[in-house]
């Protein structure tokens, strides 16, 4: 029998810990596929966040380090500065990256740290049961904004990619989504490009991936994809916000 579709080698054969319908699984596959395509698994070090993806040190087949909440870019900096020939990536959610780890993220970008960040934005804290995230939308109902996020009281959702694109050290900043086949393909290209930039020592790369959280959004997986398109995409438009490869 001919195998037409298989798991990437860079994913270990262990069950994921994610909820049914969650798009973390797709994003893991895309990262692993990029590692396979570039044949870099043996040189790659991944850094796990705190949050839903905390246990992905078990999922990726490359060497892995589990970082304190929000500190993954600093941990990745230490690894990269120790062995600059390694390919180093972090995989972080929106609470980890854009709230508690804002300083680490911004300064890794400012240093032009030659690492890749996969930033999974699902507008909520998933692991702890659905609290307001720095990226939760205006009026979004969460466990800690039960009447909807009141921007006069709780502030506004942060557009991470747009913010980081203003930083000179950033080489590639792109927002993608995994809500459709077309967008999954786009996301795959973006993630691969980020790793290619790192291999070419171009500097800091971050791919923001819009993702779903059916469990904490209280929607089924298909409704969640619709919610992402209807509510997230207008506030978080897809696109390339910085690409030094394009600036010539």
């Amino acid at each position, binding site marked *: 029998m001919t195998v037409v579709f298989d798991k990437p080698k860079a994913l*270990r054969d262990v069950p994921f810990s994610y909820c049914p319908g969650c798009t973390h699984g797709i994003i893991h596959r895309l990262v692993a596929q990029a590692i396979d395509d570039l044949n870099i*698994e*043996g*040189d*790659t*070090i991944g*850094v*796990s966040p705190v949050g839903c993806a*905390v*246990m992905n*040190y*078990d999922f*990726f*087949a*490359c*060497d*892995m*380090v*589990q*970082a*304190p909440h929000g*500190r993954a870019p*600093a*941990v*990745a*900096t*230490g*690894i*990269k*500065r*120790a*062995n600059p020939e*390694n390919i180093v990536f972090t995989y972080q959610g929106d609470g980890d990256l854009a709230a508690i780890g804002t*300083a*680490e993220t*911004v*300064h890794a970008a400012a240093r032009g740290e030659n690492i890749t960040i996969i930033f999974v934005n699902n507008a909520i804290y998933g692991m702890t049961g659905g609290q307001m995230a720095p990226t939760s939308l205006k009026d979004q109902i969460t466990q800690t904004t039960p009447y909807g996020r009141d921007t006069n009281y709780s502030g506004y959702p942060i557009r991470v990619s747009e913010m980081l694109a203003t930083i000179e050290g950033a080489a590639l900043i792109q927002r993608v989504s995994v809500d459709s086949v077309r967008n999954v393909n786009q996301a795959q290209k973006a993630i691969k490009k980020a790793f290619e930039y790192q291999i070419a020592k171009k500097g800091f790369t971050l791919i923001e991936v819009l993702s779903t959280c059916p469990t904490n959004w209280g929607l089924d997986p298909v409704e969640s994809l619709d919610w992402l398109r209807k509510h997230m995409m207008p506030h978080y438009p897809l696109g390339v916000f910085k690409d030094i490869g394009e600036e010539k």
Partner: protein
Amino acid sequence: MTKVLMKGNEALAEAAIMAGCRHFFGYPITPQTELAAYMAKKMPKIGGVYLQAESEIAAINMVLGASAAGKRVMTSSSSPGISLKSEGLSYIAGSDLPAVIVNVQRGGPGLGGIQPSQADYWQATRAIGHGDFHLMVYAPSTIQEMMDLVKLAFDNADKYRMPVMILSDGMLGQMMEPVELNEKEGFTEIEKPWAVTGHKNKREHNVVNSLYLSPARLEELIKERFARYDVIKKEEQKAEEYLADDADILIVAYGASSRISRTAINEARKEGIKVGMVRPITLWPFPDKFIEKHIDHSKDFLCVEMSMGQMLDDVKLAVNGKKPVHFSGRTGGMIPSPQEILDKIREIKEGK
């Protein structure tokens, strides 16, 4: 062997380089400034890494990363900055990673002051971060000893796979003394098969991690770590005994306050009062073996610290109620005078 005059903070940095440290991550804070500045000047010349982080929190996590990657790595700070590093230190300990952390203590709590202090003893030996773990803590009292202990700190961090602290203070950091630089001594780094360096398709992936959702597994790992701590308590206690064998009054003091105590002891001896000292060099493990052997002949113990009395707890635990334990100390950046300690010695002698 060359003898040079060096400032404590700079000597500490040089000792780290001589011990094979090529990765330093720091953040500015008084009074440890010269240490980082020395690293910034020296590291680029010897193919090392000096990186100024955006915070102490980031610096300690860079240490975590470089240590996970198998390197000898150090960070330094002063009291308020060490508080910020406590999260990272807990993760480093929980991940069984070696690292050397320097605390050039100043007055606290809060922003406190910038004058020398020993008020971080509890923090270093009891509660540097959340969870069941220890740091090894070395407390030098001269610049030469500081240099010697830095090498030992790196060796033991690697040997026991744990974070080790050099507990200095603003006085030791800022003062100058002649030191011998033994450049030929060199260092040997041990193999680190657990390090994340890329598996090169030749082994299973390495994972550096402190998360264990199974409480049974977590307990098992902590017990393994504590078995290692038992070995350390047995093998690694260090202290200096000064005129201790015939002492009626035994002073226990470390670091800067032990230097002042020594002067007071010499004065007291001139008056015919038999005073001696046990000077802990390791604060964890606390050198209780060295205290215990003097319990029988000593009538009184006197703990001298630049704090409100923190090591006092460990001295009392070691003396175990068998003899009275007195205390003399200044805090907030105030340095006790030999006269104050001498007055306390006389007071104890007179049975007040």
